[in-house]
């Protein structure tokens, strides 16, 4: 299980990577492992949408269940990873790389501060 140091995490298992003005979002290695084989990813947010922390980003469906993915930050959606629609299995093979879901321009820096760092998230996962 990987918990990259440069990422921040939300309790509902989304990760955030800040890169200049933009934040990239996805689901964690722990989440994909719990879901098992992902068969479908539907991203319902679109470029240009203004979103609030906690809004639904989309639904990820595995052979076991379907789970909602939410925005860990508020902001404006800049880019959606269209590749996931045809190759949802990337979420299993590369959750922190090719499996990114959305890029947003965060509107509230304090929300980023409130997220867990990788150590805290790793500990949180072990306790579950």
């Amino acid at each position: 299980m990987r918990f990259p140091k440069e990422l921040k995490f939300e309790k509902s298992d989304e990760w955030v990577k800040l890169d200049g003005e933009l934040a990239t979002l996805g689901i964690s290695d722990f989440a994909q492992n719990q879901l098992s084989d992902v068969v479908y990813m539907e991203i319902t947010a679109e470029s240009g949408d203004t979103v609030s922390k906690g809004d639904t980003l989309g639904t990820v469906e595995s052979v076991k269940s379907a789970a909602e993915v939410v925005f860990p930050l508020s902001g404006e959606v800049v880019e959606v990873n269209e590749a996931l629609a045809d190759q949802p299995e990337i979420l299993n093979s590369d959750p922190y790389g090719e499996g990114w879901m959305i890029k947003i321009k965060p509107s509230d820096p304090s929300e980023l501060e409130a997220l867990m760092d990788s150590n805290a998230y790793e500990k949180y996962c072990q306790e579950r």
Partner: protein
Amino acid sequence: MTFTPHTDSEVEEMLKAIDVKRIEDLFQEIPESFRFPDLAIPSKLTEIEILSELQEIASANATTGDMPCFLGAGAYDHYIPAVVDMLLRRSEFYTAYTPYQPEISQGTLQAVFEYQSLICSLTGMDVSNASHYDGATAAAEAVILAYHFFRGKRKKVLLSRAVNPQYRQVIRTYMHGYEDLQITGDNQATSLESDLETIKRQIDPDTALVLLQYPDFFGRIYDYASLIDAAHKVGALVAVAINPTALGMLTPPGEFGADIVVGEGQPLGLPLSYGGPYLGLFATKSRLVRKIAGRLVGKTRDIDEQPAYVLTLTAREQHIRRDKSTSNICTNQGLMALASTIYMSLLGKQGFKHLANLCYQKAHYAAQQIDKLDGFEVVYKNTPFFHEFLVRCPKPVSMINLALQDYMILGGFDVFEDYPELENHMLIAVTEKITKNEIDAFCETLEKVTHD
């Protein structure tokens, strides 16, 4: 944990929340005399006595076995081969509930798989679910699918006025809570001759779905290709409500661009039976597969390389989507779907074509004969039709139908209530069961009861 579902204080709390004083107040909508009626139940009888009394009551009914049936309007009196009921009444089939441990019920899964395959070949679509309640609820599901397909961003659904009025009512009931959705297109002022042009003009980028019927409610057959093209140009979906029997001779909607096909499956081996249980057909193109309610069964091989059936997709059901599920239709009308599967398999491709042709020819003979009668006129005689047609009568249809009963004939559907401009208009259906003699007798009787 107690087995009392609601304590007095909980009931109190709930009533307070909705601002109602007593539970009885919730039933105000029901006329008082019906609310808690005294039932006049006679004193006890022996089994012999009760049987004879019930038989006497039942014999007051006439069935379509006793009188030729020219009534259709969405449900049709076809012949049901004895083997359909014989197989259906095997207790393995009729006692089984929807399989919650599906893979253990290989027989049920195979039946659903065969049903889905047959519906796909009949409609020309890619995927079929395991059915809805009836044609009307399947049509409503098409609207729900389209609404969610556009994530609520498209707010208009266009219904042709020549779609079964009951389907349109059920759609409006189902969509009651979707307050931002506008269900329109079937304005009473629209002439039934220019319905399709009117629909076409109203298609815009806010349109989620266009619903057409094929053949339409009046039995008419139109080429919908250009209308469907117009809808697709602005990205809208098109659903076509079918009569499955007609597809024995007509081009399937999958071949002229329909995105969704819905329909009443009753003509496929189910009895009329007071209006149910029926069978809602629902099929789509592949790109909508994840939006379909219910279950899709697939065929695969098990570890011993034996053929096996599995639940391939249940994208909207509660066991996969938990609290986010948007359907619990499951296998739904499983027994009815099985009946239709037996019926279709029994007829086979050639038999089904033959059946459709018989309905078509007999209906056209009947239309020709009725059109010759004094005071009667077939209304859309220059438009192709299948096995149902509209007739202008010299007297109110309700009166004619009452008089026909004295001659043991079940007359056609009175369209006046649903189409106020069509006073004295009867919708007449003819299936393969009706003989030439019965058509001739029907014509004679129509003349007799209107010219005395």
